[in-house]
């Protein structure tokens, strides 16, 4: 820095100061513009984000691995302390699982025979891409994580991301060697799901909190805590039947789901490539539908719909029929 006499303001200083002011306001406006562009889902903003993520992904991967190693040592230490208890618990589970295994074998065989009888076509086979998680979920601002696999490995937007326990989220944003996973708990996440027992379809909507809500269930469906929720396979991106979570709370207004996965403890995930275009390709969605017909469930329009009902198109917010009401 050049030597400065306090209080000596030359004209150059003044101009510099003004330029600084101008640059400051300009940059704030630029940041606002970026936010607006992002809100309008402009491609360029996501592209920039993808590029930045790609540039930093190798560094994060490098750091994530030792962090995972340290953690696994800590976990090992902890598990030594509880080894007896754990043993008891595991042998109990093992006993129960062995019983289930017998059941599963029987059912599998029965399934095979029935399939042969009906000449049933099994859906497309899924391909899996394994990837390491290289960033924590965004926490306060969003529920998403970066994984170290991208377009190079065949990851595409809209694919389901799973772990051994169940559904984690879907791919939202792919760069060359990294991709962003939007967790099912994110505010923007909407996953087509169904209740495993009753096959009632709904939408799992995230809230940026630990427990997402189950919405848009058809009226009259009875839901109770403990019901298993799985993906329904609608929308074409997800395979059917990936476990999502358990219904943990039901009241008049909301149905809360506790996901099977704990996003904090994940290290490696699998991206499911179902060979379909996925939920995000709008063209494939619209071409599937006949042009003239509105998108309503056919069983409702077919039977008892009158002319009066057809006029009501959009229910006012807050007046939709709740699933728990008859």
């Amino acid at each position, binding site marked *: 820095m050049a030597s400065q006499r306090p209080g000596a303001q030359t004209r150059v200083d003044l101009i510099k100061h003004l330029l600084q002011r101008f640059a*400051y306001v300009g940059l*704030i406006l630029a940041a606002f513009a970026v*936010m607006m562009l*992002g809100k309008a889902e402009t491609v360029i903003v996501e592209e920039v984000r993808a590029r930045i993520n790609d540039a930093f992904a190798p560094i*994060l991967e490098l*750091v994530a691995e030792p962090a995972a190693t340290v953690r696994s040592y800590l976990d090992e230490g902890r598990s030594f302390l509880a080894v007896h208890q754990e043993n008891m618990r595991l042998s109990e589970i093992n006993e129960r699982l062995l019983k289930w295994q017998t059941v599963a074998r029987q059912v599998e065989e029965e399934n095979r025979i029935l399939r042969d009888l009906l000449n049933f076509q099994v859906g497309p086979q899924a391909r899996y891409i394994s990837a390491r998680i290289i*960033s924590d979920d965004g926490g306060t601002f969003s529920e998403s994580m970066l994984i170290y696999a991208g377009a190079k490995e065949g990851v595409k937007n809209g694919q389901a991301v799973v772990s051994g326990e169940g559904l984690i989220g879907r791919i939202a944003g792919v760069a060359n060697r990294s991709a962003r996973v939007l967790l099912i708990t994110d505010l923007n996440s909407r996953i087509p799901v169904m209740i495993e027992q009753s096959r009632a379809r709904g939408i799992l909507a995230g809230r940026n909190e630990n427990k997402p809500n189950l919405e848009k269930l058809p009226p009259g469906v009875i839901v109770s805590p403990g019901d298993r929720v799985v993906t329904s396979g609608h929308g074409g991106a997800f395979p059917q039947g990936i476990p999502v979570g358990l219904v943990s709370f039901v009241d008049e207004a909301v149905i809360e789901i506790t996901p099977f996965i704990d996003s904090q403890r994940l290290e490696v995930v699998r991206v499911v490539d179902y060979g379909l275009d996925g939920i995000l390709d709008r063209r494939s969605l619209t071409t599937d539908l006949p042009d003239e017909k509105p998108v309503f469930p056919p069983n409702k329009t077919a039977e008892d719909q009158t002319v009066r009902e057809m006029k009501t198109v959009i229910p006012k917010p807050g007046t939709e029929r709740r699933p728990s009401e008859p």
Partner: protein
Amino acid sequence: MRPGVLHRLDLWARNISPVGLTIVLILMSVVPTHIPGFASVVPQLALMGVFHWTVFRPDLFPLLGVFAIGILQDALSGAPMGVNTIVYLTVYGVVLGQRRFFLGKSFFVEWLGFCIIAAGAALQSWLLLSAYYTHVMAPGPVLFQFLMSAGAYPVLAWVMGRWQTSLLR
């Protein structure tokens, strides 16, 4: 002219270290810790960097650097692009206007100043996010994040202070 080049390189490396250090802080805040619940309340490390360097070495902490730091934080954390950028730029502007107040005061004053600034930043990001999603966000996580940031500031300020006195002269 070998020593001259090396000397300049050395000086250059020292001079970009405030921005570099803040980028390292961003990386630290997004690396998976696998501590349950920690991600939602992980302290705003980059905010501490922005605050500290704006108070003590604004000459080595250019405006464009702040912008880049904000964009990087948004890109890596998955927040809507621009949110943290606006917050950091605001903090930069406010702190630069008030920095005489902090200079030469005790650490306690600096900490108090950071707490006030961080509270403002938390409120601002909460408002921006709520507007962005057109949905009133739960204030809990932002509040906890602020408390964590306030609690963690002395440790980081000490590290950055040491860095400053030993490397930047």
